């Protein structure tokens, strides 16, 4: 049975997967969209459709998130406008790179390997960080972390050194902070290149880069990053759409699921302690990395079962972590209800 030209089972799969990604994005504030393009690659979509549809999904998700942050006054539109310029150039170069590699027949392979390295690297970093902190609070990547005070000791020396270079022209951003225009454009270009090449929002790199390399306060970095993703995602979707790379039958159900999941994930941040879940997040990224590696090996050695293993692994990774978030939320709410019911009033 089909709906809008797409099988009902596939539709349900996309809505469910979008929901899981939305829960992760809403809870951790980043990283959820990183799973979409690899999942589409694993499902056998061509590289340009996987990257283009992934980017259109990121665009829709960013629109919803930016509307929320606008209400909180956490968007610096001047900084965002400048970052759009640098990012647009980067995206165009990244997109040209994808189409060039596609002509050579190397696109899926190179994008897949880049994903394995990036997901694996970030996954190892997050897991190691979560295990060494062993429950200590860490504001990185948390939605509510946007409101935390910045501890100067938490900024690495290399970042302080980079921030100390004051290459003119300088500009003033939210909070009266002076930053170099070149640093803003450089960060925007580098993350735009990654967005165009991998079909991701780039927030998992741009947000820390804005904080560490430019010195933008975290709340403004989060809001401005999302505003910027609206444009970079929109431009990227348009460019890929012109080449037939955006499939609305993929994007629409993913977005419908993620919009609901993001609300639940955002609400969960006020209930569940992120440090309890963070290790699962790192393991999920590692799972995604292994899944894409399986798919690459399956393509290379022409072993179909490896593709299936990769697909199941990527779904299980997302399901495990989003399930852990929802389970912890329900358990915490029940616990609090029991405590309030037991205490005399």
């Amino acid at each position, binding site marked *: 049975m089909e709906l809008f030209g797409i099988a009902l089972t596939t539709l349900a799969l996309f809505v469910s997967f979008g929901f899981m990604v939305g829960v992760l994005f809403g809870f951790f504030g980043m990283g959820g969209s990183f799973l979409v393009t690899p999942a589409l690659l694993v499902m056998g979509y061509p590289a340009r459709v996987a990257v283009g549809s992934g980017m*259109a999904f990121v*665009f*829709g*998700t960013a*629109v*919803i998130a930016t*509307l929320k942050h606008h209400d909180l006054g956490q968007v610096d539109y001047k900084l965002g406008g400048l970052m759009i310029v640098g990012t647009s150039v980067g995206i165009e170069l990244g997109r040209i790179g994808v189409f060039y590699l596609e002509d050579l027949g190397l696109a899926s392979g190179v994008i897949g390997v880049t994903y394995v390295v990036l997901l694996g690297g970030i996954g190892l970093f997050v897991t190691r960080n979560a295990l060494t902190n062993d429950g200590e609070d860490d504001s990185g990547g948390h939605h509510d972390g946007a409101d935390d005070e910045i501890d100067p000791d938490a900024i690495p020396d290399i970042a302080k050194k980079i921030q100390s270079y004051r290459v003119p022209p300088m500009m003033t951003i939210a909070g009266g902070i002076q930053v170099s225009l070149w640093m803003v454009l450089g960060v925007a270009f580098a993350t735009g290149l990654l967005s165009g090449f991998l079909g991701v929002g780039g927030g998992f790199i741009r947000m820390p880069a804005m904080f560490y390399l430019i010195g933008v306060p975290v709340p403004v970095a989060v809001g401005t990053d999302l505003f910027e993703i609206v444009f970079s995602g*929109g431009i990227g*979707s*348009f*460019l*890929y*759409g*012109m*080449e*037939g790379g*955006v499939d*609305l039958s993929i*994007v*629409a159900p993913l*977005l*419908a699921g993620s*919009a*609901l999941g993001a*609300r639940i994930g955002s609400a969960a941040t006020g209930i569940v302690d992120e440090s309890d879940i963070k290790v699962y997040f790192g393991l999920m990224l590692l799972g995604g990395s292994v899944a894409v590696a399986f798919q690459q090996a399956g393509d290379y050695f022409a072993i179909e079962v490896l593709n299936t293993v990769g697909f199941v692994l990527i779904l299980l990774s997302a399901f495990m972590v989003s399930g852990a978030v929802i389970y912890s939320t329900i358990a915490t*709410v029940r616990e*609090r*209800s029991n405590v*309030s019911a037991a205490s005399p009033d």
Partner: protein
Amino acid sequence: MIDLAAYSPAVQAGALVGAVLLEAIVLYVGYGALERVATPVVERIKHA
């Protein structure tokens, strides 16, 4: 039904981006309204 295939790639791509934007705004407003309705119900269940 509008046949987008008759238009240039730029118009088709613009229509795709517009459709995603429209869906995002509808979902933001729709789920926002649902949340406003559901929150008091959940609170009542929690404190029942």
